[in-house]
């Protein structure tokens, strides 16, 4: 049984202009200790997916259907009290901008200790001791000093290390990291990513890494999901998806990488932009931008086709598979 099983998850934002579906029919699984990458352009629903796993969507967002199974519970319908005992304890989150994530008027020590005390019946002194141990694990310089410091006394990189330490405090099963390195400068990015990879491997923690950095995904994760306009359009082992992308959108993403361009030429772009969630086209939501668009793409939503170890939601891929099968039969 997988550690986390998301089935047909749908997230709705009830706006004045009507309900907008930010996630549609999202299903995937996560095994213990597995590292899963979630990629897609801005607005594809990556962050919403991250937050909906622990049912922490900001109003007016809410899970409208589907389930998130974790250790026999459905997090999508769990009572607030029980949900709270899972958040930060079994599943923890790391946010994008470490400058905004820590409360500016509370010391690092207070913000770490409160998390431990909320989930475990231990003394304050023990909580402090554990906090210190975790600070050492994230390789922060002079950790003893940090507990009494306020966030504004620390640099961005140090703050993100502290956020990671808070995420690891209760030895969770899953860490959801929502673009954990986007707000940091490039040299620090690599350090933090290495640190997260090592800590997850050492502690056998599953990682859901939400990012639009394909380089990071290929280095860190074992499996990846590609999202477009609130849907998963391709998923599979990271190596296969990266080396042999099937979906035209994933191919476009790969071609857009700077190293794919001919020196001196413009970078390859996917033409057009992602449609706003209120006006998703009929059929395959990628069809207006797709180079290989066919009639069926404008009519019918593609279902997943198995391709190698990957699943791809594309009519073209489905047809080519069908053709191959026919050829074999003949």
């Amino acid at each position: 049984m997988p550690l986390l099983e998301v089935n047909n998850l749908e997230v709705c934002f009830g706006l004045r202009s009507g309900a907008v579906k930010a996630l549609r029919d999202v299903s995937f699984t996560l095994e213990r200790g597995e590292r899963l990458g979630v990629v897609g352009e801005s607005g594809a629903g990556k962050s919403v997916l991250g937050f909906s796993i622990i049912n922490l969507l900001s109003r007016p967002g809410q899970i409208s259907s589907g389930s998130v199974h974790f250790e026999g519970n459905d997090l999508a319908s769990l009572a607030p009290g029980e949900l709270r005992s899972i958040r930060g304890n079994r599943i923890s989150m790391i946010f994008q901008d470490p400058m905004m994530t820590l409360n500016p008027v509370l010391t690092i020590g207070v913000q770490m200790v409160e998390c431990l005390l909320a989930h475990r019946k231990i003394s304050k002194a023990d909580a402090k001791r554990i906090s210190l141990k975790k600070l050492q694990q994230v390789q922060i310089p002079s950790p003893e000093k940090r507990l009494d410091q306020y966030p504004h006394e620390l640099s961005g990189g140090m703050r993100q290390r502290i956020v990671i330490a808070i995420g690891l405090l209760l030895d969770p099963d899953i860490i959801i990291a929502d673009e954990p390195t986007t707000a940091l400068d490039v040299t620090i990015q690599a350090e933090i990513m290495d640190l997260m990879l090592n800590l997850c491997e050492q502690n056998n923690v599953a990682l859901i890494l939400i990012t639009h950095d394909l380089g990071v995904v290929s280095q860190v994760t074992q499996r990846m999901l590609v999202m477009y306009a609130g849907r998963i359009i391709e998923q599979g082992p990271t190596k296969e998806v990266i080396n042999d992308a099937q979906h035209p959108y994933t191919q476009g993403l790969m071609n857009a990488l700077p190293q794919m361009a001919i020196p001196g030429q413009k970078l390859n772009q996917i033409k057009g932009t992602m449609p706003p969630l209120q006006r998703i086209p009929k059929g395959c939501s990628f069809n207006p931008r797709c180079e290989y668009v066919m009639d069926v793409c404008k009519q019918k939503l593609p279902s997943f086709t198995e391709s190698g170890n990957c699943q791809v939601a594309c009519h073209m891929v489905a047809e080519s598979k069908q053709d191959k099968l026919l050829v074999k039969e003949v």
Partner: protein
Amino acid sequence: MIAFFVKRFFQAVVVMFVISLISFSIQDNLGDPLRELVGQAVSEEERQALREEMGLNDPFLVQYVRFAKKAVQGDLGDSYFFKKPAFEVIMKKLPATLELVFGATIIIILFSVPIGVYSAINPQSWFSKTVMGLSIVGISIPVFLTAIGLIYLFAIELNWLPSYGRGETSNVMGFWETGLLSADGLKHLILPSFTLASIMLPLFIRLIRAEMMEVLQSEYVKFAWAKGISPRRIYFVHALKNTMLPVITVGGVQIGTMVAYTILTETVFQWPGMGFLFLEAVNRVDTPLIVAYLIVVGAIFVVTNTLVDLIYGLVNPTVNLAGKK
């Protein structure tokens, strides 16, 4: 810390200088103090002689320098009406006013924080919507109308509370007449305090609500939810502390403003404080008393704002008053 106080002291000196200059310069335009000072029977020659003697005919700057020289020694001139040092007269009335402001402040804190926080957490509830509606009404009603309404209801119709005066007072430390130590004194304080609080209360409820709603949207509050800590701790430790920072700043200025609003409240309730005294002084063209009042109120403003900055520094760790490393 010392540097902070030295800086503050020099700022205060400048502020007090400006206040004294302005308040002193208006005294020429308030009317003739001699009309109140001497009777109808006194002839014009005698009046002129008296003016000369009092130095009222001297150029403005000469008069101001003479006043300022005495003022730095604590002598703000004698009240024409009371024939006593104006400063002394004011200081005798100061406790009544400060106790009124204190009462109103307590009421504001007791009501605005819980109501503001509740309506920020539950912005859609009927209670929050009612409070928001009422607060608009509250801001729009003038103080004297609130006062008369309260008197009518609680003093005349229900006969629960006294409608005027301070009631029984007792002397503490030799100079402070307090009404806070007896039940009768406290009873007399209730209506005036609520009246004075009624101006600021809606403002504070709205301010706390708006700040709190903003803080609740912040990333660090969202992160606190993601840590799985209790809602009570999130609201009252994580959110409230950040909410109070701007509220403290505004609050300090508003407490100073309330001292000025006491003029109306004290008049309606016959409260024997500085504001009531000031109004009488204006009617009597008692210029030294008017000047003394303005200077004392200015000093209260300076002191409260300094205190507020100190408190702000204690609550907000990013402000470093002490200059420590």
